């Protein structure tokens, strides 16, 4: 290159680079053109729509809204003020005042943030008069939740202020706004919330508002939230909560024909109104830190227990499907099942049949361990290797929705556990396991874990003879179709004809004089059910019961777990039958049984456990 040309060349080169860069910034990547909250020339005001109401399946209002008033602050507009007067008005200390101001400033000096949330109406009336004295502070109206009926906090959930990490993830939310954080408030947040409206207001250099920005081309109207109708029957829900007084556990009731959840009870419960208002965080902390009762744990969805005897229903169905037993297969039970040559290889049985031949029907209503162990063993041993047998067994069992999330519209859940061949291969790497190694699975002990909702769903499947809809909590959304995953029928791997004999057995649990739940028999109601006693490593056995009714045309399927309730027919059985009665007949013919449940308490048992635990830990 000639020496004279170098500078000219570089000048043109740099000029080109600048033009390309400007083209990229201003034309290609022009995302900065919209007004932002960082822009002080344009003030953004939000118009919050009313959050949708929530009703139960019969149209009873469960969640409504109430007005509340927040004090907002824009730190850079705060002028020196009479802090003492201000603090007295708001009933806070000066230390709090400084802390809150600093927090707001750390978030942003330009964007409004909540200074004090949820004032009462009285405080608001008083403050409104004086607010003009304090530059940079203003009052924002907001809608809060209100619960006319103090029930089902685990179903309804609650709303709370968004936290900073969520704001980063979802730019829709600003600091101080509310979001559903549990229950249906969480899963149906977008439906209930609606969309807030935005108004852009142009300000002049003196911060005076001078009209809407660019004639409102960026403004949007708020879209109101939609009302929800839940599948819950609030009367049944309340009744269930009352029956569970002073007992820990979970109940899930499902309408088999639709998969709608009629009741979902978790005890100990709490008053949902505790999660509203200025005392909210105090109340929440108290509930959150209660690690003994764990009221925030939804036992219907999150508690995983060994299912115990109700699982025998599955064992029977799988064995029938695999053709290893039929309704006439009989075994003899002498108080237990010997599955090995060693002395301790013996599973006790309480069927008290004393060696007379036991067929499927009797095995179910007497809950014979030996019979189902035998059936399970045959199922596994039908195949050349235990691995293959276990694989088939696992596929069959899992088709009942066990061992995995149900993929429903509830905010929490647990998978439970249905072991497969890999599970055991891991434990016995050298292939040292056979059908008898895992024999406890036959009676719902061993490695199996289920949640009450899974068991309720399983019961509904039996009631439906092999088909089901995914259990769900929302019946209707205003102007919106229900999600298709709740309206498509699902199938299990078990043929329809195998359900008949099993249902007969379940029916006899109530009907036969020696049936395990004959005590809970209700006149005029054809209930099918199964007791269960779930052995667990934490202490006293859990009381378990599953049932559906009426036998011919099932309208309710229910699973009840009472923690440390000794055995199935002691607590869970009566509770399940009372709820069925209440739901189908609207009243009970057994007031004495109802009274026993209302008043019965397991608190002593829980205290004892706590004491034992603390002795061990000491």
């Amino acid at each position: 290159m000639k020496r004279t040309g170098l500078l000219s060349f570089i000048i043109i080169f740099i000029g080109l680079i600048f033009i390309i860069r400007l083209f990229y910034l201003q034309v290609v990547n022009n995302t900065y053109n919209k007004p932002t909250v960082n822009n002080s020339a344009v003030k953004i005001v939000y118009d919050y729509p009313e959050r949708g109401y929530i009703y139960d399946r019969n149209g009873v209002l469960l969640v409504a809204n109430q007005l509340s008033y927040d004090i907002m602050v824009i730190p850079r507009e705060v002028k020196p003020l009479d802090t003492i007067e201000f603090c007295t008005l708001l009933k806070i200390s000066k230390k709090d005042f400084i802390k809150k101001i600093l927090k707001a400033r750390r978030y942003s000096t330009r964007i409004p943030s909540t200074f004090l949330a949820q004032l009462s109406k009285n405080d608001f009336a008083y403050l409104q008069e004086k607010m003009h004295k304090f530059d940079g502070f203003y009052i924002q109206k907001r809608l809060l939740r209100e619960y006319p009926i103090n029930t089902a906090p685990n179903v309804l959930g609650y709303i709370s202020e968004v936290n900073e990490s969520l704001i980063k993830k979802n730019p829709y939310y600003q600091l101080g706004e509310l979001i559903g954080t549990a229950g249906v408030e969480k899963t149906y947040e977008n439906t209930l919330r609606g969309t807030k409206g935005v108004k852009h207001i142009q300000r002049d250099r003196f911060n005076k508002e001078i009209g809407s920005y660019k004639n409102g081309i960026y403004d949007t109207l708020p879209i109101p939230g939609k009302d929800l109708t839940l599948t819950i029957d609030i009367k049944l829900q309340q009744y269930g909560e009352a029956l569970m007084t002073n007992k820990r556990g979970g109940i899930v009731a499902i309408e088999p024909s639709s998969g709608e959840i009629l009741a979902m009870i978790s005890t100990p419960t709490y008053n949902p109104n505790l999660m509203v208002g200025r005392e909210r965080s105090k109340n929440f902390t108290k509930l959150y830190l209660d690690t003994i009762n764990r009221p925030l744990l939804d036992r219907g969805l999150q508690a995983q227990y060994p299912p115990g005897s109700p699982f025998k229903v599955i064992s029977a169905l799988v064995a029938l499907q695999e053709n290893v037993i039929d309704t006439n297969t009989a075994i003899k039970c002498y108080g237990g099942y010997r599955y090995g040559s060693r002395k301790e290889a013996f599973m006790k049985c309480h069927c008290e049949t004393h060696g007379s031949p036991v067929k499927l029907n009797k095995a179910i209503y007497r809950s014979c361990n030996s019979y189902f162990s035998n059936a399970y063993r045959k199922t596994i041993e039908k195949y050349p290797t235990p691995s293959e047998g276990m694989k088939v067994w696992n596929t069959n069992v899992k088709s009942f929705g066990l061992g995995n999330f149900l993929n429903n519209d509830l905010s929490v859940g647990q998978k439970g556990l249905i072991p497969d061949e890999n599970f055991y291969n891991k434990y016995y790497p050298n292939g040292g396991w056979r059908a008898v190694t895992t024999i406890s699975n036959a009676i719902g002990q061993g490695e199996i874990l289920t949640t009450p909702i899974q068991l309720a769903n399983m019961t509904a499947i039996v009631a439906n003879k092999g088909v089901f809809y995914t259990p769900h909590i929302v019946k209707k959304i205003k102007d919106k179709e229900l999600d298709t995953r709740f309206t498509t029928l699902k199938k299990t791997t078990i043929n329809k004809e195998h359900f008949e004999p099993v249902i007969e057995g379940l029916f006899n649990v109530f009907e036969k004089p020696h049936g395990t739940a004959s005590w809970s028999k209700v006149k005029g109601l054809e209930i099918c059910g199964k007791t269960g006693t779930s052995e667990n490593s934490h202490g006293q056995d859990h009381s378990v019961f599953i049932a559906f009714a009426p036998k011919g045309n099932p309208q309710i399927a229910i699973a009840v777990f009472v923690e440390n309730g000794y055995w199935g027919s002691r607590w869970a059985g009566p509770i399940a039958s009372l709820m069925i009665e209440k739901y189908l007949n609207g009243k009970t013919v057994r007031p004495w049984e109802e009274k026993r449940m209302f008043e019965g308490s397991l608190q002593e048992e829980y205290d004892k456990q706590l004491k034992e635990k603390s002795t061990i830990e000491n």
Partner: protein
Amino acid sequence: MRIRKTNIFYGIDWILILIYFLLIFIGWINIYSATITETKISLVNFSTEYGKQLIWIGLSFPLILIILLFEAKFYEKFASILYLISLTSLVGLFILGKNINGATSWYDLGGFSIQPSEFAKAATALAIAKLVSDKQFNLKKWNTQIQAFLILFFPAFLITLQPDPGSALVYFAFIFVLYREGLPIYYVSIGFIAIILFITTLYFGYFYTLISSFALFFIIVVYFNFYRKKAFKKGWLKIIGIYIISVLFIISVNFVFNHVFEQRHRDRFDILLGKTQDIKNIGYNTNQSVITIASGGLTGKGFLDGERTQGDFVPEQQTDYIFTTVGEEWGFVGSVAVIFLFIFFLLRIIHIAERQKSKFSRVYGYSIAAIFFTHFTINIGMVIGLLPTIGIPLPFFSYGGSGLWGFTVLLFIFIRLDANRSYEW
């Protein structure tokens, strides 16, 4: 010669003057937009910055007349003296100077301040022109090279001490001038290699730069050994020498960056190279200025309608960041127009410089082209986020009397010299 005596405007380049006034006019409009605070205040008002700037612009007319009144020969004759006066004024700052924004770069003259470094550029350009135009002068010889470098070194050094390293950077622009006048190519190459090594060292760390430079060295050696055996035999010492110097340079860049630079300097580079992102503190200026420019879009928001400009989001918008106002209110179209205007202005100066018969005029013209070019590149490069934050003004745009006068002097001395091109010296 007769006409010359009666008309001081004889022979001056009207195109250059037209561009000058255009730049001044556009610049002032943007200063007005960036600094207007209240409505309906008269334009000539001492209390506002746009009013003050208007006065400076007004006062530059008599200045131009005075510059044009002098004979062209005056500037050549008195170049050395003007250079010495300028150096003295820079030294004087350490005694009488006024500290503004952490740099002692100002003389306080009652109502206004003067920044001598703005005038030192013109004096240095004259001095270099005088030195290089000497018939004995030969840039191939190292002792003459040293003379030229010393002339540049003194003002640059004094300005760095103020400290105002940004303004001192401008003196590197003279390398283009010296190259044009015969400075061996390797000075430019070394500068170029140094810049590349500097950036790669900061960006990739000295370790990887060392490794990759060795790889490059190895490839070059292999290439020469197999394909250019003769050249290799002659030049292998040079190649190894360059490589060793490069290695030392990389290590010293690493050392200087981490141990000599202050944190704020490091921050500026780190932000530019995308190593840190802190738009609230250290990256605030760059982030705001880039957003402001980008928000202008294709056609801009219109005069006085840029809400980021009006909302005072960009710090120092009327001075170093004046181009953001152009970007926001006039958009891509306006920004490109300004850039075209500058490029045309620079090329016009070079074109005029090349047509000079007198070597003095040519070197001077080249010098001011290089100076304007450096200001243009560093300023706009910084504002649009391509270069680190270096505070130097955009000629004729940025608010500031000394700057405006300094650039006016720079330009009109050249116009005066050019008007004399057909005239005998």
